[in-house]
């Protein structure tokens, strides 16, 4: 018995007697005797205060946003998380519930997901959203799987080079068992136009990202029509914060739009759990993977929420399934629903605007430093490429000493850019912090 196990010794005796065995070991006779009760070589158990001390020690071995100024992004962003979000996440009724299989006693989770879907539709302009995927990368991979199901008999996926390289890697992992060709991202520095040029009558999907991995904003109006004219679908991977100000995937004519929900109140969390946002057109509702919540009535006529269109899922179709997704990121979807509700129309615009302005302030100041050059041939949102006078790793090491986490080192992904760093600025980087960064760069 431990503090988590409420069966006492007396209970155990009584229960064993009821079961009709003598000892607890008798319940395990089906396990091959030679493999039964193996020793586990684990550290001795720790008490709660000891554990908390050790966890605190490990935690403080990491740099984090309370002690460091963070100018690193590349897919995870240090945006503001209102305290109210966590107040809701900590409610046992939400976080200790499971998938809402019994709708009568799961209306809380169901309503939250329905509102999440609705908020995401309003944010993206898209017609429908599912209850989420694991993260932005897997949502993007699911867009390819869906496209292959929608556009039958085409086995080519075109993906722009400017899509997050980790996402492109996941896409390749997901599709490696299928007979599919993935092209378009081989050449460093290749453009959206280059990718579009590859869309042909064998192509099921074109995937682009906006703002792209290098932070650049693209005008995608009309792109959907161009792609659809070639019989393919367009998937746009968006940034949910940028949508406070900028062009939606719907305006680009996207058939599918995916996003990483992390900036929507989830925090950095060393990479997860995050939130895969997936949206598409109403007409593809039966092709969408993952869960969806809809509205209906109960027998008394009360409005109620329920998981719907489940015939799509593997628990019914099994081996004909095209997705095995089972768990979604329910709690993260809830967090983002709380975040989006708190922000509202004004808040989303403000966050995007403050982020944009501070990023441009930082870019201007850095560009004025001798030896540094900001690549700004195109509009950008919160991230921009800085060409540096020295290797990025050296610069970051120097910044570290001043409790600044510098930008993403592009030398492996985009070697053609030289000593290039991808810097991210959000509304959490105060003007004073930006000035401190600039001073530190200048002093190098």
């Amino acid at each position, binding site marked *: 018995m431990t503090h988590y196990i409420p069966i006492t010794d007396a209970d155990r005796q009584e229960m064993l007697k009821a079961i009709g065995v003598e000892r607890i070991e008798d319940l395990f006779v089906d396990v091959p005797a030679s*493999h039964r009760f193996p020793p*586990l070589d*684990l550290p001795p158990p720790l008490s709660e205060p000891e554990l908390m001390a050790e966890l605190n020690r490990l935690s403080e071995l990491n740099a*984090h946003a309370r002690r460091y100024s963070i100018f690193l992004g590349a897919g995870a962003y240090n945006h503001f998380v209102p305290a109210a979000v966590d107040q809701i996440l900590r409610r046992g009724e939400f976080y200790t519930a499971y998938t809402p299989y019994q709708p*009568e006693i799961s209306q809380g989770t169901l309503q939250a997901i329905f509102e999440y879907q609705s908020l995401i539709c309003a944010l993206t302009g898209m017609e429908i959203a599912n209850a989420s995927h694991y993260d932005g990368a897997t949502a993007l991979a699911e867009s390819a799987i869906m496209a292959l199901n929608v556009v039958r008999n085409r086995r080519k996926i075109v993906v722009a080079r400017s899509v997050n390289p980790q996402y492109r890697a996941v896409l390749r992992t997901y599709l490696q068992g299928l007979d599919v060709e993935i092209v378009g991202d081989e050449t460093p520095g290749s453009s959206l136009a280059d990718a579009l040029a590859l869309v042909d009558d064998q192509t099921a999907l074109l995937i682009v990202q906006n703002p792209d991995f290098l932070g650049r904003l693209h005008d995608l109006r009309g792109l959907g029509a161009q792609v659809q004219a070639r019989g393919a679908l367009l998937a746009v991977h968006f940034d949910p914060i940028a949508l406070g100000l900028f062009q939606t995937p719907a305006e680009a004519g996207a058939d599918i739009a995916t996003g990483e929900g992390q900036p929507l109140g989830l925090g*950095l969390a060393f990479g997860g759990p995050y939130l895969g946002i997936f949206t598409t057109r109403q007409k593809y509702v039966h092709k969408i993977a993952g869960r969806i919540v809809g*509205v209906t009535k109960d027998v008394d006529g009360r409005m109620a929420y329920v998981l719907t269109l489940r015939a799509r899922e593997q628990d019914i179709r099994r081996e004909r399934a095209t997705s095995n997704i089972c768990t979604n990121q329910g709690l993260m979807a809830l967090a983002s629903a709380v975040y989006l509700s708190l922000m509202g129309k004004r808040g989303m615009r403000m966050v995007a605007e403050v982020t944009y302005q501070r990023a441009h302030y930082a870019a201007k100041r850095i560009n004025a430093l001798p030896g540094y050059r900001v690549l700004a041939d195109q509009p950008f949102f919160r991230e921009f490429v800085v060409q540096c006078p020295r290797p990025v790793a050296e610069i970051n090491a120097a910044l570290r000493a001043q409790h600044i986490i510098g930008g*993403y080192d592009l030398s492996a992904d985009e070697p053609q850019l030289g000593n290039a760093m991808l810097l991210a600025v959000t509304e959490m980087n105060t003007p004073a912090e930006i000035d401190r960064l600039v001073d530190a760069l200048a002093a190098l």
Partner: protein
Amino acid sequence: NEEPPIFTYSQPGKIGANLPAAGVETTPLPSELLRQDDLAGFPELTEPEVIRHFTRISQRNYSIDTGFYPLGSCTMKYNPKLHEEAARLPGFAAAHPLQDEELSQGALQLMYELQSYLGEISGFDAVSLQPAAGAQGELTGILVFRAYHHDRGDTQRTEVLVPDSAHGTNPATAAMVGLKVIELKSDARGNVDLDDLKAKLSPRTAGMMLTNPNTLGLFEEHIVEICRLVHEAGGLMYGDGANFNAILGIAKPGELGFDFMHYNLHKTFTTPHGGGGPGSGAVGCTAALAPYLPGPRVRRRDDGTYEFFTPEKSIGRMKAFHGNFGMLVRAWTYIRSMGAAGLRAVSETAVLNANYVRVMLKDIYPQAIDRICMHEVVLRGLIAGAPKDVRTLDIAKRLIDYGFHPPTIYFPLIVPEALMIEPTETESKQTLDRFIATMRQIAGEAVETPDVLHAAPTKAPVRRLDEVRAARQPILRYDAEAISRLQTAS
């Protein structure tokens, strides 16, 4: 007690967040790139309204923290509160996944240790923490199988064997990777039918996916033999870890002959289910398969520090960054707080609890296969003397009126009217006795007042739903007009 959609509280101009002003000289916005619709339909509320709304809807949820949740195959065990504090420590909750390894040593040490613990508990040589959920762990495993065979030039192995009692994700996973699913029959004792297995093994066999204990809650009596047969045929054994809570310290899948398995950290290792996620589906495997695991994994350098690495023949990334890290913190904390003896006590008690429910109910609700069970028991909603139209669904719904979450029903598919009950080790005998008494009470009602069951639930926030309408006339996002039409429709 109803709570309207959050959009109904919206009024122009309200805001629920307190944001900074830019405070810098401004740059004009690129007007041609701005969105045109002014975020139409986006709600506007204040913080008090948002908090009240979500607090109120939360109370319309059943949860472990409010009651017994014997949902079979889901291991709805208690989620320790210490873990919630642990995952919120700033070095875990506010660290950037791409910050330098030198700035992430605490996180890397924790991941490294968790890899080791999971390997030790399951008898595997290598662990990757990357998969985000059990289903993604399965996908990882089947991709690794494929890569392993292909790497040896063995490209003809296109079939995956899956018992008819399996979780739906197993065949779906195989299908996702483009492999063919071959279904295996179960025998009268609930084991895989060995003859059927032998008949279906072939040079086309990539591997077999098996849950052990299986979804009947029974331990595969021939597990060692099964593994031997599959290996002899050149196939690999995939272990679905959904039921791992039954065998911590009882048996190690790696020693039984499995080559690969996933751990559902949100089942066995207490990370919260979160209303359907996030999960965490770490995977373990033999040394032979380790080179194919997804990266990054963590290893220890000679100087005692830690670093990420990607195995040389890796199938690639399963998701961005390093897995659902917050869940890893919770699982690490759980293992460190339980220790070896504690983990064995977990499984012993989980199995004890299930068998206690089994013997106290099986005279009324027949057990699908009459054996000692593991951590869960599959009964059947066939009550002697009850009218035919009393179905398992009715029993489940009636449980709601008595304050219990229903068990899993109609699964596994091979058991008609299945009632799959998993009590877990974190429930007391008092709770089990109340549940047992209630189940017996309901059996009586099924015979005497069956309409009470058909009408159930009557004490939940809502009653039974018109699910057909939800699917036929789908309303999948807030639409005041559609909802108003729904409400006035008969």
